[in-house]
Structure formats: structure tokens, C-alpha cells
């Protein structure tokens, strides 16, 4: 089973939009790999540096409400995918972004605000990392000598997409 997660990147703001995840000027790239250097390039957050080790070494993103709002561009999940980030955990997502994540076989996990706060309590730890077990709907966060696990809810269809490796394979075998 594919492993989900890795070093955690904390993006502490709601309504982070697809232009901030990958600016429109890079939509002219025609391979996913070409998007790699532009991850979160236009995102302005105190203490956040798109070019830092922490950004590029991340395997999971933790953020707030309405993540991925704006355009339908699947370049947003792709820029995560090609940089080794295959899970985004948020209080809520914009519908198209959320669907794009599952359609690519990646996980978009929604948690209530208190659990998101709990995850953010690890933001100060340089070694904060998250591991997600999609089949069992559990995630574990470690860092700064602490560790805890929590359950999450994911719709059976979304889980099936992740386990199938995405919507194209799923749909092609079924319809």
C-alpha cells in the first residue's frame, strides 16, 4: 500500500487559492514535472519561504479552511505530487481541488477546527511529520518529542479512488 505523508508543511491561513499554489503563468507547461520549481511561489505568509528546505522537503500539508479555492486547474495537486506531497489536511476544501486530489490518487483530508489546531501545535517542531493510513482512516503526527494519532472521515468513494490510484483507472475498469 502506498505511503501517505512525510515532513509536514504548515500553511496557517484560510482561503489559500490555486493562483497561490501555482500561478496561472505556469499553466503553459505541458508536463507535470515542469511545474516542480514553482510550488507555492506566490503564497505570501509570515515566516513562509516557498524556496526553503521545509517547503521542498515536505510530504504533507496542514492548512485551514477552503483550501484550493479558485480555478479548476489540476496543476495545483500536480505541483504537490511532483514535489512528493501526497496528502493535504485542512478544515475544508474547495470542491474542485478536493476532487482533483482524489482523482489523482492523493488524499485531501478534512478535520474539525479543534483537530486542525492540535496539528498546528506541532508547527514549531522542525521535525514535525505526518503519516496517513488511508485504508484505516487514521493519521499520526510526530515532532518535538511528541506524538499523537487521530481518526478522520473520508467518503467510501474517495477512499476507493485513492486505493485505485485515481479516477481514470477506476472509471476505465467500471464504465
Amino acid at each position, binding site marked *: 500500500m502506498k505511503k501517505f505523508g512525510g515532513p509536514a508543511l504548515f500553511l496557517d491561513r484560510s*482561503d489559500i*487559492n490555486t*493562483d*497561490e499554489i501555482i*500561478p*496561472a*503563468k505556469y*499553466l*503553459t*507547461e*505541458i*508536463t*507535470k514535472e515542469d511545474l516542480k520549481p514553482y510550488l507555492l511561489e*506566490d503564497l*505570501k505568509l509570515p515566516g513562509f519561504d516557498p524556496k526553503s528546505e521545509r517547503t521542498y522537503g515536505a510530504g504533507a500539508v496542514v492548512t485551514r*479552511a*477552503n483550501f484550493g*479555492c*479558485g*480555478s*479548476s*486547474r*489540476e496543476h495545483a*495537486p500536480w505541483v504537490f505530487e511532483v514535489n512528493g506531497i501526497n496528502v493535504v489536511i485542512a478544515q*475544508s*476544501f*474547495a*470542491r*474542485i481541488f478536493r*476532487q*482533483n486530489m482524489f*482523482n*489523482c490518487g492523493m488524499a485531501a483530508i478534512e478535520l474539525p477546527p479543534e483537530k486542525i489546531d492540535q496539528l498546528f501545535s506541532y508547527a514549531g517542531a522542525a521535525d514535525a511529520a505526518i503519516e496517513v493510513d488511508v485504508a484505516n482512516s487514521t493519521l499520526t503526527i510526530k515532532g518535538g518529542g511528541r506524538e499523537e494519532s487521530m481518526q478522520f472521515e473520508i*467518503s*467510501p*468513494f474517495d477512499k*476507493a479512488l485513492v486505493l485505485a490510484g*485515481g*479516477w*481514470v483507472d477506476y*472509471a*476505465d475498469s*467500471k*464504465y
Partner: protein
Amino acid sequence: MGMTTAQKIFAAHLVDEPFAGTKVLGIDVVMCHEITTPIAIADLMARGKDRVFDNTKIKAVIDHVTPSKDSKTATQAKMLRDWARRHDIKDFFDIGANGVCHALFPEKGFIRPGNTVIMGDSHTCTHGAFGAFAAGVGTTDLEVGILKGVCAFREPKTIRINLNGTLPKGVYAKDAILRVIGELTVNGATDRVIEFGGPIVDAMTMESRMTLCNMAIEAGGTSGICAPDRVTVEYLWPFISDSFASKEAAVAEYSKWVSDADAEYDKVIDLDLSDLTPLCTFGYKPDQVKSIDEMAGAPVDQVYLGSCTNGRLEDLRVAAQILKGKKIAPTVRGILSPATPQIYKDAVAEGLIQIFMDAGFCVTNPTCGACLGMSNGVLAEGEVCASTTNRNFMGRMGKGGMVHLLSPATAAASAIEGKLADPRKYL
């Protein structure tokens, strides 16, 4: 219990329900443009599945950057063009015939009440103005749509918005939708359809209804929807006159898609807009809306009139009425991009283009261009644009640039004064 328009369309298009709450729908219209489709094409080719489920149900256009501005955009256009030829997609629109997708496809009569519509573009919700379920999707959903003609959705709940009263002078559909988004906030309609009704919507043209539905996504909505009625039939008549004995017959047939009186809504919001003033966004989110009274005087470097929100003929008419015999401020760059070639031709015939040019506007070909900061009017760092488009994210029209969303009338008044301005004094 009665059903909403969206529920009726879902029930009529259901192909599979693999899990409770997930509906796989048959899709009537799959629309494609050159930014999000080429990667789907490349992936289908790599999988050895370069096929289309039905070449009459696929519509394609090169619209985002056209004419191509560099070799990368030329390659994207070529990929779409070659694919359309390879699969004999008749409804493919290239240079000379191309315009902004969400203005062009309705104009061609492709969208009918009760249809399911998807496109790899978030503003696909526009087409709900015809009483259709129209949703923006990503490239993978688009790819499956092209290959299989299906798409999966969580069945959305419906938010009903009643626009009551009458719109005052100088206030338009754009002001109404900005008011609605201000009310709902940027994620107030996530996983919801926004159904627009009430006397103001009943009295609106199809163009104005498209402006409303276009921005449903800015509140997170899956689709905007307006009930199909006499106005819808009048608009579609050139395309459907062979199928119906009379317009009354068409209205009667399409009425089956109208929400039932006892339909259950997630929420019903009544807004009386009789006292609404022209509105304008002030921040980097489309729900950050203020009255033009508060915003007037804020500096502007560029005024942009166009896009799938407000680049239609009625928008050009309103702006031209204000600009007639006037000059735009010397400190401002005015750019007009009529949304389709037909709109452009009609605007020439009506003398509107002459008015814009005499006022000092640059008139470009139909394209998305500046709306998403790709070509034909990109902002420099720190510049401000008064724009009839739909999205004001930081950098949307160019890195470091700021966008104020407003109506074509407010855009025209702002061009004259070189700063945000109230259009009512020019009407």
C-alpha cells in the same frame, strides 16, 4: 417532497451510484479549452486510449491565450487543434471563430435546459443560466468525460437565492452577484448549487443570468442555476425551432426542469435589491465587497472590459452609453475584449467599437488573456485594475497586481475619471 432543478437533472442522468452519496452522471456536453485539455490528451495517448466517447458531444475552443503568445502556448493550441481534427470534432473553434468559452458555447446554442455540462474550467457554472447542471472540473475528470462521457459528483444540496424588488438605475447583474457573494462568503456554497430566482431574475436577459451564474464558483458553488422560462426559449429559439411546434410548447417542455414548489432547499435567502448601489471589491477575495460610494476615488491604472462574466453585447452597450463622446483619463489604460467574434461584429455594427476607440480604449480580439494574467493586458507589480472579470486574487491579472471587480458601467465611469467612480452620475 418535490425536487429542485439539480435533483431532477441528477435523477435523469444517473448512470451509477457506486457508494451512497456518490452519483456518476452521464454528461451531455463536455467542453474543452487549450489550457486544461492538452495534459488530458497526452495522458490518454500515453495510456493507449486516445479516443472520445462521442465527438458530437465534445466542444472545443482555443480561447485562453489566442493568438498564441509564445512557443509554449502555440504548442498547447496545436495539441488541442490536432486532437480535434484527429477525432473529427466539428464544434471546434480556432482563430477567427474563437471566443471566451463560456460566452461562445451558449451563443452557439450548445446548452439546453436539463443538460449536464462539464469543462476543465471553474467558471463552467455559467451555463447553469439555461437550467442546466454545469460544473467546472479538473483535468482528470475532463479526461474521463472525454473517454467515457461520465463524471462523479456528490449530490449537491441547493441554496435558493431570491432576488426581490427591482434593480435601481446604474445597478446590474454584476452588482447583484457581488452582493450575493458578500452574503454567502467565498465558501458559503461549497458542495452546493446556487439557484437564482425571484422577480429580478425573472426579468433578466440570458446574458445577465449568465453573469449571475458565472460567479457561483466565487462562493464555492458547484453550479449556478436559473429556471428555464420564456426568456431561455427566446434565446435558444434559432437552435430549437425545428424541435417544437411553438415557443409555448418549448416553454412547457422545459418547465419539467423547474424546481417544484415544495422542493427542499438547504437554505433560502431573500434579498431585496431595490436599494442596492453599484458595488466593487476592495481586497483579494471576491466576498470583500463595498458600495462604490465608499470606494470612489481609489486610484486605477487600467480598466478592463471583457471576460466570460461581462464581455457580452449588453455589457458593451452599457459601457458605451457612458463613454459616448467622452475621453478616458490620460493616466488610465482602457482595454476592451469583446467575448466572442459575434459580439465583436455586432458591436461594430452598432457603432459601439467606434465609441470605445474614440474614448481611447484599446480593442483586442476575443480572448481570456488579461483576465487570468496570461496575455493582452497583464499588470505590472503594484498596479491596480478596475475589471469586469470575476476573480480578484492577489496577482490574478499579473504578479503583484490588484484587481477591483465591478460592473461594465462602473468600469466605464472609472475609466473616464481615472479612479473608481460611480456610474450613476453618467446615466
